[in-house]
């Protein structure tokens, strides 16, 4: 599979490896979403298990966006990773897998990464109007949007 992908996308596939028996590929962010489409159509990864992100605050491109895919046909899993800078938007995978809808909303809610082409990108777990994205590493564990809490809950602090 890797050679097929490399044949098609050349040096865009930066790394293809196995870690503890789990396959992953690291790709150039410009290959998203074409590569995801190819993975679904040609490599039969028909199930989008999860979309998530990892925050590396010290890196120039701060975010790794991770697509976890599964193929019912081949009983195979793969993780696709691509790097994105803070403020850079990621092409949405909703046209490829409808399941991506809520998953991308969660990544947006928790990390503040915008998905271009998402039909209804808004917060999913936190209330709309909340300031900050809690899964960024610079968001403290007891940090909260004090102003939101005071206005909407009528209490001084949620702590």
């Amino acid at each position, binding site marked *: 599979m890797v050679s097929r992908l490399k044949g098609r996308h050349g040096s865009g596939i930066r790394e293809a490896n196995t870690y*503890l*028996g789990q396959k992953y590929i690291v790709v150039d962010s410009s290959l998203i979403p074409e590569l995801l489409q190819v993975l679904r159509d040609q490599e039969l990864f*028909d*199930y*989008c*298990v999860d979309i998530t992100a990892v925050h590396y605050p010290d890196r120039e491109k701060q975010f790794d966006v991770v697509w976890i895919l599964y193929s*019912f046909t081949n*009983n195979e*899993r793969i993780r696709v990773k691509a790097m994105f800078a803070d403020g850079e938007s990621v092409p949405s995978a909703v046209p490829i*897998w*409808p*399941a991506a809808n809520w998953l991308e909303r969660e990544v947006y809610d*928790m990390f503040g990464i915008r998905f271009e082409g998402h039909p209804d990108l*808004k*917060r*999913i*777990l*936190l*209330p*709309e*109007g909340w300031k900050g994205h*809690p*899964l960024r*590493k610079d*968001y403290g*564990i007891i940090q909260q949007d004090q102003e939101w809490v005071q206005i*909407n809950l009528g209490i001084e602090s949620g702590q």
Partner: protein
Amino acid sequence: MTDRTSQLELEQHEKTFLDSNELIINMGPQHPATHGVLRVILKLDGEKVLGTECVIGYLHRGVEKIAEHRTYTMFNPYVDRMDYVAAVSNGLGYCEAVEKLLNVEAPPRAKYIRVILTELNRLASHMLWLGTHALDIGAITPLFYTFRDREEVLKIFEKYCGARLTTHAFRIGGCVYETYEGFEREVKKFIDFVTPKIDEYEELLTTNRIWVERTKNVGRISAKECIALGVTGPVLRASGVKWDLRKAQPYAAYSELDFDISCACGKCGSRCELSSKRSERFLTVPSWRRSQR
């Protein structure tokens, strides 16, 4: 508490509101049958639901953020709370994941204990679901039956680790407790006790006309839609896909066990029948293990 987006959505709907019979109704977040708080904005035409929008997050506890500030061991009891009626199963998933990261494996005996307790938990979880599901659509009796029988599983958990719901039964690398004196006998007794009960539940519901009318041809979802939307587990099997993670990519001791996967034909009622059939199937798992001893 109405937030800004929902208001915007309501305004958008209002554009079509006058030239049709559509009605927007807000359900929740406190629904009378609340099993976890969900708010649904319903678009109705008479009694027909034309569209819904779910507002979730009321029970969001930020466990990922908590996990950032805990060690693997410290975080272990938190996963019990993610689904407190399936704490054992959650614990298994978490421990196996950490073990994989650390590249260690639990000893065989621990794996068998894990599978036995997890399958018992699966059964208890199905019972709670079946009872409350029937209750929600108007049948009160099944709830008493399933809760009475679920109690027996909880008693086994309590004897094993001292807790009934949030069990924290497993530790990274194995189990913390050996099975108690008489564990095998009690599990065996429970299986003999519960097997005929499953037929009883099935009879209570599938021969009940109201239940049949209220679930037949409701909430149809095709196998293709399931996969596209990322729906797995019993719902996927009820849509006719014979797929089970325990078979496809076995974990714990499942690769050594012999069991069937049931599947059905994709409507709400078949999901229920399937679930009770599944419970039955998986009773064979712990009993198989014991016959090998």
